[in-house]
């Protein structure tokens, strides 16, 4: 059974502890960013930010403000399309760790032709992988495989102060997710667990996916 994350967005305060901790653990340098009229910064995933919190705000039909936070990261799909596409071009460019279910890019992704790398990116239903122009490798969340393989939690989970993130064996996390959903539904009838059957990173969303991010859910 693979490892599974639950990301309960109804508990997220967008403190961005996860976003920062991810950078720190992976020792990634800061980008030079600008204020563009949004708190979402950097504006998108990039080779130096494998996880970012996305912000989305709107007025609902009653005229109340809704501000949704979406800590975006690789879903570590149970059947990763990206890996299949990469394998067709360069076998072993991407792997799925059988023990944890982590979907990982390897140094062989540098051997992918530009159009093949593009195809891998386009194949992802969640718009996750990014091409590092320096190393020519594909980059994305690695589930903190170095930590997880020695029994530690991914750094984003470890850092989260509000209980937004839960990490563990799939059979342990699924019941927690379903229980949380049941409770949340009393307040947010539209709430759902995004693509629960297909992914290892399950988002609990309280609102339509468009009100988080266009790629927040596939189905």
């Amino acid at each position: 059974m693979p490892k599974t994350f639950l990301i309960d967005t109804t508990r997220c305060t967008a403190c961005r502890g996860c976003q920062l901790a991810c950078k720190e653990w992976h020792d990634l340098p800061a980008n030079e960013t600008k204020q563009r009229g949004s708190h979402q910064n950097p504006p998108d995933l990039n080779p130096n930010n494998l996880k970012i919190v996305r912000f989305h705000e709107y007025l609902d039909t009653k005229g109340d403000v809704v501000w949704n936070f979406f800590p975006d990261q690789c879903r570590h799909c149970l059947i990763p399309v990206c890996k299949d596409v990469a394998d067709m071009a360069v076998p072993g460019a991407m792997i799925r760790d059988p023990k944890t279910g982590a979907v990982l890019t390897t140094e062989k992704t540098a051997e992918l032709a530009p159009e093949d790398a593009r195809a891998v990116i386009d194949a992802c239903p969640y718009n996750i992988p990014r091409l590092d122009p320096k190393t020519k490798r594909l980059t994305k969340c690695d589930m903190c495989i170095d930590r997880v393989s020695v029994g530690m939690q991914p750094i984003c989970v470890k850092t989260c102060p509000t209980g937004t993130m839960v990490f563990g064996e799939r059979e342990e996390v699924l019941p927690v997710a379903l229980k949380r959903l049941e409770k949340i539904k009393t307040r947010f009838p539209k709430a759902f667990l995004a693509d629960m059957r297909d992914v290892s990173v399950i988002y609990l969303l309280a609102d339509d996916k468009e009100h988080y991010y266009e790629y927040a859910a596939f189905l």
Partner: protein
Amino acid sequence: MTNHWIDIKNSDAVLIIGSNAAEHHPVAFKWIMQAKDNGATLMHVDPKFSRTSARCDFHVPLRSGTDIPFLGGMLNYILENELYFKDYVANYTNAAFVVGKDYDFKDGLFSGYDPATRKYDKSKWAMETGPDGGPVIDPTLQNERCVINLMRRHYSRYTLTNVSDVTGISEENLLKVYEIFCATGKPDKAGTILYALGWTQHTVGVQNIRTSALIQLLLGNIGVAGGGINALRGEPNVQGSTDHALLYHILPGYNAMPSAPWQTLAQYRKANTPATTLKNSVNWWSNRPKYVVSLLKGWFGDEATQENDFCYELLPKIEPGEDYSYMYVMDKMYHGKIRGGFIFGVNPMNSFSNTNKMRAALDKLDWLVCSELHNSETTDNWKRPGVDPKTKKTEVFLLPSAHRIEKEGTISNSGRWLQWFDQAVQPAGEARNFADIYVPLFNTIRALYKAEGGAFPEPILKMHWTDKFVADEWVRRINGFFWADSKVGGKTYKRGQLVPTFGALKDDGSTSSLNWIYTGSYTEEEGNKSKRRNSSQTPMQAAIGLYPNWSWCWPVNRRILYNRASVDLNGKPFNPKKAVIAWENGKWAGDVPDGPWPPMADRENGKLPFIMMKDGHGNFYGPGPADGPFPEHYEPAETPLARHPFSSQISSPVYKYHTSDMDQIAAPADPRYPYVLTTYSLTEHWCGGGETRNVPNLLETEPQLYVEMSHQLAGEKGITNGDGVIVESPRGRVEAIAMVTVRIRPFTIMGKTVHLVGMPFAYGWTTPKCGDSTNRLTVGAYDPNTTIPESKACCVNLYKADKLTEIG
């Protein structure tokens, strides 16, 4: 905090007002989330919809500077609908006390006002006294001058219409909050109020907080689990620095600052030691002489003797009515009356209001000593943009400072817990912690005084000081020692041993303590209790998340203050499921009670719960504050309104301000400055950003100064999201990037549209192209009690920028 972080989870209604808890206390916010998990309603009342609002059940936008009308409306709602907790109010508060005949209130002014000095004669607000000099109490409440009757009359003016008109909150939303929060007036319900600088940084800052005290006393929410008035402290050790009197106005442990009329210790004691006529009032401050003498003993050691008044004469005395707070210091500096000084642990050239004046003031110094992690707008003021360094005479000594993880010591958190932290790494290079700078400096000065003499060497030479700073030694000194062999409860202590509890402190020179409220934190029996990490608890304590063996909390490890008010006259908890203390088999169980005495039903030995008040009762009517015994609404010093519905007194009649050429304040409803500006911090930066702007990963998340505004205002001004904007006040001009958002909305105030904009103050010019101090806009108008500047509300204009020079 009256309570503590974990205790918030016990609340049935959490009112977050004047605080952006989720953004500024992102880790502690989990306890607020737990309250919600347990069924509490979370409400956020704040000018802007923030990350806190997003996690609350609902957000209610209020115009900055109108918290008193909002809360005054709640008081009126409670009193008119008799929603208050009647037994609690009758037994534990001064509702039935009779106010003296000189008290009056007319058209926004209390009796005793002198317009020439902008001060009140507070003696006009005195309570009625009986033949014994004690309070006159009318339990029937028939006397129209009973506190509760005056309070009812005062707040009857805070009608829904008036409150809605001035706050911009719809009547429907007002009622929504009032209904939910006031439902906690029942014995088995509790509501908590969480506030921060959103309340304090106003010309009515103290009264904002006092209004919450009135509400919480009426609803019986003080002393109970899940209740209280909880100041969410920002700086990790701001509680500790308050306790240890970092500011000028008090001595450590909340003792009055010596003043010129009190030249002898006897005079000081007489003026500051209250006496009560009520037999069941503890009147804890009657113990003050023990704490002050022990403090003097801590400072001067064997030099402090009965014969020399324990060296009291060596303490500086302030002039009555003089203000020595930082805003006055900076004003003196601006007028060339200060030649040099030390600025440690603060970045005034970014964080103080009316920063342009601050920067000009600092130019007047001949010399300046700073100790910092990074160069700051203060250390580098002499070469700020737009000035020629050659014209600046100040010689700056910049000492490299250790980071907080590079030292060991204690931090007192919001919940008054004293927590030890270890040194993680050695300071880099030549960096030192402040104590390792100050101790050798003091010793050098001392050696010079010893060798060369001076005008007044005694305070320096007689100080009970140290050669080298060791944190553990000072935690012990703060706790206090015996200076003579003593007996406490049958146990003998030798000279030099630690005092076990403040009950053992004496006013005869046989004990010392650098801060009586911390006595008991480090004992012979249990060692340094700030290091305790033991989660054991009784089932009763477990029911409310109380961990008496984890760290230590002042006073005497009492986790919830005024907890004698959580029980009825027989000592039975009002809410048995969340009992804080309970009288069982002749003794108290649960938290450390406010004193060992039996409950009040014992007419001989029982005691009133509000032990720090002279007469033991919680005070609705408070003749202490400079601006009135009841909180009253006044507009901020700068307001978009020409009038308001409560009186013809627009702004506070007693707020403080300066009158230099750089202290401009716009007149009410000045058409040149039509928009309200409020300022704030944000999760990703630490206060003025002096530290965090130097952390590249943090700067990546929030790189540049922005101004949040509504779509409506942006539309009116032809501004689109991400545009450069110029914001102007009578004091300055600031560049920012427009953040156009639904989270800020126009207010309808007195029938007119009022726009509010918000800006963080975390940016400064020493970080290239990120923008410069927002406080160049904020106003030099101060609360009359604390002199805190009104950083949370002023008036500005703004327009789209043709080009930006501060932001790139």
